[in-house]
């Protein structure tokens, strides 16, 4: 793992409760719960995993149970960026742009082998994991992951959201994390 990734790890851990010298109040917990139950996804579906996301939206798995059935194709309205599928180097800047356009708080889930690590496409044209362009909160393995795994990833984000302090997004650690990706 590269050094940049090490940096991510420090700031990405769910440190909401005691993180940067403050504690989550009960009010923050309520807001955290609200956020956790209303994660509107931006399905950034580029290939196969997108088809499995369709299945996740479908009746059998029904992502709406988690309050996430409203896909926000406008990045401004989305809470989680679900990157599903291969991100080629040509696409990398677009992912970054979409991430920048999203309003805080925002989470990124890299779904599937390609988005998380490049998968079998260790080629000249494919980005070896989107954590090279945007900070990733949750990785979902699989090629493509079963809908259960995507839901699993969503629940991980819910855990993050529940325990996150309202002020985390202003903390220096978070700013440093973004700065390490040259965002803002």
């Amino acid at each position, binding site marked *: 793992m590269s050094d940049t990734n090490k940096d991510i790890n420090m700031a990405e851990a769910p440190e909401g409760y005691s993180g940067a010298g403050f504690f989550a109040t009960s009010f923050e917990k309520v807001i955290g719960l609200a956020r956790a139950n209303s994660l509107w996804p931006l399905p950034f579906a580029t290939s196969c995993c997108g088809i499995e996301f369709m299945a996740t939206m479908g009746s059998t798995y029904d992502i709406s149970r988690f309050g996430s059935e409203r896909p926000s194709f406008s990045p401004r309205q989305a809470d989680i960026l679900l990157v599903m599928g*291969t991100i080629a180097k*040509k696409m990398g800047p*677009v992912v970054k742009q979409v991430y920048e356009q999203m309003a805080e708080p925002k989470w990124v889930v890299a779904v599937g082998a390609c988005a998380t690590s490049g998968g079998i496409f260790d080629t000249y044209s494919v980005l070896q994991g989107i954590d090279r362009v945007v900070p990733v909160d949750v990785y979902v393995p699989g090629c493509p992951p079963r809908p259960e795994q995507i839901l699993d990833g969503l629940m991980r984000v819910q855990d993050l959201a529940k325990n996150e302090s309202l002020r985390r997004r202003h903390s220096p650690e978070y700013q440093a994390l973004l700065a390490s990706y040259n965002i803002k």
Partner: protein
Amino acid sequence: MATDNKTADTDQLQEFRDNRDLKLQDKKNENLTTLNLGPTHPATHGIFQNILQMDGEVIMDAVPTIGYIHRAFEKIAERRPFYQITPLTDRMNYCSSPINNMGYHMTVEKLLGIEIPKRAQYIRVIMMELARISDHLICNSILGVDSGAFTGFLYVMQEREHIYDIYEEVCGARLTTNMGRIGGMERDLSPKALHLIGEFLKRFPKVWAEFEKMLTRNRIFIDRTVGVGAISAERALNYGFTGPNLRATGVDYDVRVMNPYSSYQDFEFEIPVGEKGDTYDRFLVRNEEVWQSLKIIEQAYKNLPEGSYHADAPHYYLPPKQEVYTSMEALIYHFKIVMGEIDAPKGEVYHSVEGGNGELGFYLISDGGRTPYRLHFRRPCFIYYQAYTEMIKGGQLADAILTLSSLNVIAGELDA
């Protein structure tokens, strides 16, 4: 079989097109807005970009850009042993991976000169037709979604889950199936799989009929699709269209009939054709193809012959696991095949199958090494998307989106 190009409406269409072009030229000088459709527009289902020049809601010009998920399949294929390329083909047209898998297998079998037993061929036919159903099902229901009717999509998606159940029972995966091996299937159809197929054949027609009922004769839907994104048979052929999109224009070219492979000649089915080559015709052709696929599956399911599910080709097909554990000879073969050291003959082969989207061709050159020297995929989506610009010009923004979904351009196959 001869292909009679039905040219009934072509003249009319051409006339329409000429008139439209004149109108377009008149308006060229006016102020146009540029609208960037993609690469992540919700209607693109996958990523490709279209920069539209719009006059209000009317599209004057479009500049397509692709390559946003270029994954270098053809380059990878030159570095991987033959059997490791199957997972790659999964990810090309991921809506119908088994067709890709088996198309590739058949290509290699053609190169190696392996004859496949009937049973394996029939199993392949069942799986390929299931894949076709799941492909058309996605395409047509997405057409519904893009025209605003979301519900039908979820109804048929449940059936797709059942197709996935069958896949799962056959190969152990849902979407990227990696189904079958060079020389046959990796395992026989289990009783449970057979049962699931039977169940599917019973249940699916009702669901599909219901889906058709929701859209086919709905005037809003008809208005949205008739005449939208039309292309004449002549232009379609010139653009290299195949598959449902070509058949919608009235040309009954189908690889399954023209160059039967995997025992397709044994089955009774019709090739549905459209007339105008518009979105509605494409929708209807796909709908009808689903019915025909069901018919084929039913025949194959009823007449599934006894026999082996793989060819007797010890040099290329992995020996049964039990023998590997015990017999030295099998172990040696096993090692050789897994290391990719099979004695592939020199040669070049082109084999095409009727993929979910059209003629899916594999052009394989072997120099006798462990990997293909060159493997070129003829990807139908790559061809469709090229004609997209021509098809949407003069239409409205909403038309462009429906045209795109009805062409069923799949980014994975488009960019390779």
